[in-house]
């Protein structure tokens, strides 16, 4: 039997990672986070508002830096990387889907989707274009490729943002409440697409969500409470939410 080394090598690995915001009063947001994500995994991160979920996602996405510990992306220790090095890691290996689509208003759907490829490689070739057009077709936006975000619906824009996140064939998708701004039907569509891409391309997905139903569909659920992270089972999550409802 031969093992695929890439499957064994984590795409994300944190070792005792912490984050403190320094100010008049120092605020510890994350404490000693040990977290590993392997290729093809779909991990949901849950927790109350202010628990540190988004901060963790920003650090994993190299948008922010940890103040202690180690962060490895695809085996590379990026803890001491400077701005432009982190930008390269983001462009090469990570795709983002935010709660709001954050498409660029002045560009069409196709241009928005091709933008990460152009930023990364300085241009687009026929292969890139074909791949991106195929993704656009998969999410049902072929008719909208020449439309600007202001002429598309919220669900269409979020699907466009999902394709943009996948345009560079990243190893990791970080999704921060990607359905939070959508109605339930559109939200479900976007979530289903995220799951399909995860299964079909092997891209790892780390998704922050408040939606238990979506979280329960993930391979693993991680809970962040007061800056500490722990794995929970689906049943634990249901019990916790029931208790929260009773307390409420």
């Amino acid at each position: 039997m031969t093992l695929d080394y890439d499957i064994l090598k984590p795409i994300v690995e944190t070792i005792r990672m912490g984050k403190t915001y320094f100010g008049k009063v120092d605020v510890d947001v994350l404490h000693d986070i040990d977290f590993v994500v392997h290729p093809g995994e779909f991990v949901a991160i849950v927790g109350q508002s202010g628990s540190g979920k988004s901060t963790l996602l920003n650090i994993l996405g190299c948008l922010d830096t940890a103040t202690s510990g180690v962060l490895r992306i695809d085996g590379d220790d990026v803890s001491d990387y400077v701005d432009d090095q982190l930008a390269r890691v983001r462009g090469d290996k990570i795709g983002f889907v935010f709660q709001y689509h954050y498409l660029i208003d002045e560009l069409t759907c196709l241009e928005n989707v091709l933008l990460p490829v152009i930023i990364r490689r300085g241009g687009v070739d026929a292969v890139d274009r074909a791949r991106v057009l195929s993704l656009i077709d998969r999410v049902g936006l072929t008719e909208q490729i020449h439309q600007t975000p202001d002429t598309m619906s919220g669900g269409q824009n979020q699907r466009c943002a999902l394709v943009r996140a996948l345009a560079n064939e990243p190893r990791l998708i970080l999704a921060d409440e990607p359905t939070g701004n959508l109605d339930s039907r559109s939200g479900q569509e976007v979530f289903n697409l995220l799951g399909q891409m995860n299964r079909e391309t092997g891209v790892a997905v780390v998704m922050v969500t408040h939606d238990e139903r979506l979280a329960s569909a993930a391979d693993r659920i991680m809970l962040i409470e007061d800056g500490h992270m722990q794995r929970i089972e689906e049943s634990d999550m249901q019990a916790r939410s029931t208790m929260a409802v009773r307390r409420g």
Partner: protein
Amino acid sequence: MRGFELMLAMRHLRSGGWQTFLTISAVASGVIVVIFISSLIFGVRAHISDLLTDMLPAVTVSPAELKPTPLAQTGVVGYGLSSSKIELQNPQQKNIDDWRGVAAQIERIPGVVQAAPVVMGQALVARGGKQIGVNVTGAVPERLNRVQRLTKYVIAGHYLGLASNEVMINYKLSDDLSVGLGDRVLIISGRGVSEWFKIAAIIDTGEDPGGVAYLDFRPAQNLFGTGTGASQILVKCDNLYHADAVADRISAIYPYKVDSWSRLFPQFVASLSAYDAVAYLVSAFSLVASGFAIASVLIVSVVQKGKQIGILKGIGARRGQILKVFLFESLCIAVAGAALGSVAGCTLVRFLDRFQQPPTHPGGRTENLFPSHLTWDLVTIAMLAAIITTVIAAVLPARRAAGVNPVEVIR
């Protein structure tokens, strides 16, 4: 699709609408002010220097005045008595006899355009019972006209091709004597020689306080008894400021008295330099002012685009790429503003050129109400300066954009 920086910059400008138009207008206004003010200041300067160069030779070569020598130094034996008081001799008429050779040699000096031998003297011009004192200049008209642009100021008749029995007089003299073209006047030199001349031209420089008469070279020699000599050689240089160097070269070759206009009238040199300084200062201040306007508009643009910059960085854009987007944006604004401003500035100057001052007397010359001096050099420099200023003004906002922390703007 190659490179996103220029494309995104162009889209920003297109979507900016009025904001883009106002920013381009700020650059254009700077260019208009620079072109307009500079061309007016340089126009006044050119007007003054034209007056200087049209009527004043850059260099005047005349025979040296003899310096008195004490008898004791003359070496004459037997002069026991000598005065200790040394006085200049009475002016004696001295001429440049070899004026052909001297003029030819002077014309070989680099920077010299023309050397015109002249005979100059004072005379009376009589008509009927009136006699008026005049300064007479005799020269080959074609040569003198290349040193002093007399034909530019001729208001009636012709100076070039002046015959030996013809004279050109100034407007004031013609007015005082009540004479016109074709009338004959008697010119009587200080030596008592007199000749009749027909008035072939009337000149009006607007500068002559008294009577002036221009003759051909030969009749002037006869009137003033210079024989075959010339009383002066007037020299024209290719550049107003080369006069001193040319004068020094002539002094080094010939033992004549050589004067340059800039040494005779140093105050003119100072005033011309002051005009230059004012033009440059006004231009610089205009550009700096428009630079601040552009910087502030671009800073607003950076703030407005904060989220977009954050998302660009989020999807992998590096600092240099973000910097380029905003520098391209400012470059497009600069080029469009400079082009618009140069067209508007030139049009404005050309429009003002149409306004003329009324002549001081019937048939007199008209002058521009706003003397302007518009050159391609000035327009090119104004455009380049505006483009450079705009791009420099954009560096700070662009650096600010490049330094945006994506986490702070994407929430």
